[in-house]
């Protein structure tokens, strides 16, 4: 029986090794990366630089650093070290994307349905991505509460959650919530809203309801704390839907709003002003280049595709210059994938911006520090600086080049993706196969 047990354990280890080839093997979080061209994003490139990581935190950046005993040393000559890539708009690592039955579902929380087993996490790591904002879909005008995850593949879901990030609530506007590209099933009525007018009206209605709800609770609390509260005083019904919206109005949540056309963006920003809630960023924002003044005035950034366009009517004026032009105008821009496939080549997507007017540095910022700022985690990640968490990616060529390849992805000093290790594993597997 013992033999069977140990064989089973061996197999489990083998499977774990497949899942996370390195992470469990290493002394956690201690690394020295040598001789890399460091692109810190926060400053000029450092050729032949070294980064020392202790307990997952960047301790030193410089040259001729010495590694403490037990720390792994990574020789990276000829390679480029960048901050881990951050994708500000994905739906990966979730069981389900939309609660699409109702136009208003702020009561749902992505944190309830994280699936740490989603292979998309690994896929993203192979492209140097270390952090994602994983969101409710765009089926509803008001979706759910999103979550920011670090892609610690092989770790339990609760260890993935980045608690320091802005808590955000997904809104969506335009064709998706209008359901204009949807086949209407027989016997089912068209859902409200079917127009952009309706979408805005619904948001206003729900926020007014949420205000009412807050007032009800205030009245209850006052009465309860009064000198002679009624004996049978009943608290209001706790409504999870309105609780979330109340949190938005209280400033505890930030809106992240899927929007394409100029008008709906302008109108949403007006709503935000009217109700005094915060907008962390506009998603997709294909026509942002038309309303740069309004975006600047509102101080709202955008999270966009570089050039994935023309897949529906509202994306037909989505020009590849959008990200570059908005950046030039001073808007905070990040590039997102919104896809469990594109996520692994987000660096290529950012690289395209160079063609449309940005420098390589500016392009790289869109998937690192800009993204971190939009998620409220720029004090932790997004650049290579002493004191920040060691979320890093190593590329064999400049990451903004079409010819580059991600070699290694590191989160808090742990190696979660190592191409060379994968190649080695493959060779060994092939040898085993050949040997049998």
């Amino acid at each position: 029986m013992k033999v069977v047990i140990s064989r089973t354990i061996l197999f489990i280890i083998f499977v774990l090794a497949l899942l996370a080839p390195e992470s469990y093997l290493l002394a956690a979080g201690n690394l020295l990366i040598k001789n890399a061209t460091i692109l810190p994003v926060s400053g000029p490139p450092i050729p032949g630089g070294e980064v020392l990581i202790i307990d997952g935190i960047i301790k030193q950046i410089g040259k001729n650093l010495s590694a403490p005993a037990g720390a792994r040393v990574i020789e990276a000559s000829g390679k480029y070290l960048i901050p881990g890539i951050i994708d500000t708009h994905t739906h990966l690592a979730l069981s389900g994307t939309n609660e699409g039955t109702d136009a208003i579902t702020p009561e749902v929380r992505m944190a309830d349905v994280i699936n740490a087993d989603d292979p998309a996490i690994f896929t993203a790591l192979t492209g140097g991505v270390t952090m994602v904002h994983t969101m409710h879909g765009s089926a509803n005008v008001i979706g759910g509460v999103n979550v920011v995850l670090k892609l610690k593949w092989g770790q339990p879901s609760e260890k993935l959650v980045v608690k320091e990030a802005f808590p955000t609530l997904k809104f969506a506007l335009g064709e998706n919530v209008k359901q204009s590209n949807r086949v209407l099933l027989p016997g089912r009525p068209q859902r409200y809203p079917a127009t952009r007018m309706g979408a805005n009206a619904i948001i206003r209605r729900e926020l007014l309801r949420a205000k009412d709800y807050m007032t009800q609770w205030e009245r209850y609390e006052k009465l309860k704390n009064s000198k002679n509260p009624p004996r049978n005083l009943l608290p209001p019904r706790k409504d999870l839907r309105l609780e979330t919206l109340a949190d938005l109005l209280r400033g505890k949540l930030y809106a992240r709003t899927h929007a394409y056309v100029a008008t709906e963006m302008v109108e949403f920003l007006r709503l935000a002003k009217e109700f005094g809630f915060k907008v962390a960023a506009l998603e997709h924002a294909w026509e942002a280049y038309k309303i740069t003044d309004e975006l600047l005035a509102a101080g709202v950034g955008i999270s966009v595709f570089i050039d994935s366009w023309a897949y529906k009517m509202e994306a037909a004026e989505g020009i590849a210059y959008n990200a570059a032009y908005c950046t030039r105008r001073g808007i905070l821009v990040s590039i997102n994938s919104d896809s469990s496939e594109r996520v692994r080549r987000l660096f290529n997507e950012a690289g395209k911006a160079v063609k449309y007017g940005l420098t390589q540095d500016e392009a790289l910022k869109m998937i690192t520090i800009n993204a971190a700022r939009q998620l409220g985690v720029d004090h932790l990640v997004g650049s290579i600086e002493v004191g920040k968490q060691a979320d890093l990616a190593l590329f064999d060529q400049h990451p903004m080049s079409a010819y580059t390849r991600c070699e290694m992805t590191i989160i808090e000093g742990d190696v979660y993706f190592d191409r060379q290790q994968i190649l080695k594993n493959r060779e060994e597997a092939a040898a085993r196969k050949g040997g049998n």
Partner: protein
Amino acid sequence: MKKRIGKLNLVSGSRKVFLLQAVAILLFMILSTSSPGAGEEVGPAYALVNCKIFPVSGPPVEKGTIIIRDGLIEALGYAEKIKIPEDAEIIEAGGLTAYPGLISAHTNLFLEIKQQEQPQTPDEFLSSFSQLSEPQEFPELQIFKELKPKKQTLESWHKIGVTTVVIAPGRGIFQGQSVVLNLNSDQPNQMVLKQPWALHINFTTERGIYPSSLMGTVAFIRQKFYDTLHYDLHKKKYLSSPVFLKRPEYDHFLEALIPFVVDKKPVVFQCNNQEDIKRALRLIEEFKLKGVLTGCNEAWRVADHLKGAGVPLLVTVDFRPATASIYSQQGEAVRKKAEAEVFPANAAHLQKENITFALTGFGLSESSFRKNIQAAIKAGLSPEAALKALTVEPARILGLERQLGTLEMGKIANLILTRGDLFDEKTKVIKVLVDGILFNYEEKGQ
């Protein structure tokens, strides 16, 4: 093959009385089938002699005697210490081993499950979509009322040693309330040990209506729990002081939840993968429920969470990885290997982590249930722990530890006699006693 009433002990003075009694009994037997439980009957008395005994509550007895009377264990112990009552029918059990009857604390026996027809054409699909807008929520459902016990099923479960089962509903998110049954007959009323036992909740979704996603389901459950608390509070306030308080509108859904959410009767969460376990634990914590987790074939992956939680586990020996599991996501070879080598070790891991659990055959046929228990043992679970997980542990989780789970004086006479070690592949169950009713399963040709 099966003695329903068994040989009754007739304490008779004369032949006449005996005849009268015989007629009465005959009448009773006829009547009892039409109106079960109409009258009290006195169960038979047996003396099982010369058997090896695994009482589970104590060390095994190599050669012992068990006295059973009227459905209960009257006495048991070393052969030389137990006096066989004069009225007991002696059953020679030399070469057999007695165990407490096994308990599978999550099954869906005796239910006529309507197969949901898969639409085949686009038209069927579309129409099915618009028809399925009825919510599939049944918090008030008593599965007991739906039972259609069949002797055949009963016997096939006896043959793998199971004498007690939980039968749980299986549709919707709020699935309804389960029942604990002794497999003693095909008469539901006679079978009941606990009715209802628990509210069963599954993290599934509705089709086409809210909640249609897992995230919606979690929110839906939470809202219902909050609503129950509010509804209950409203009712209580109204009862104590109805003046200037509008009465609460009757809500059958929330009414059904009160015993579980407010009065803390058990709530069983079906956990199909590791994330479900964590989801359930969060809900149990948030609402301070008396939670039980079932399914849990990935429990070893969340051992850390389970250790501190003290939430009872009903671990199925269904080794098929859930669709969301990593083991289903990396190709057929990995999935098959996981099913054969990783998942069977679940129970062994839990044992190593000192997490107690009951084993169930949830999702499995009786033959797979038995086969997979053996596989779990091969993967490192100790046979002692396996036996406990099928007897005393489920009895404890069901709150029936004083009646069931071990062979002890005064407990319900649920026991099985096997030829060979319970968990050996070739071992056969020869005799089964449920509530003291004897069922014989002699091997053919012996």
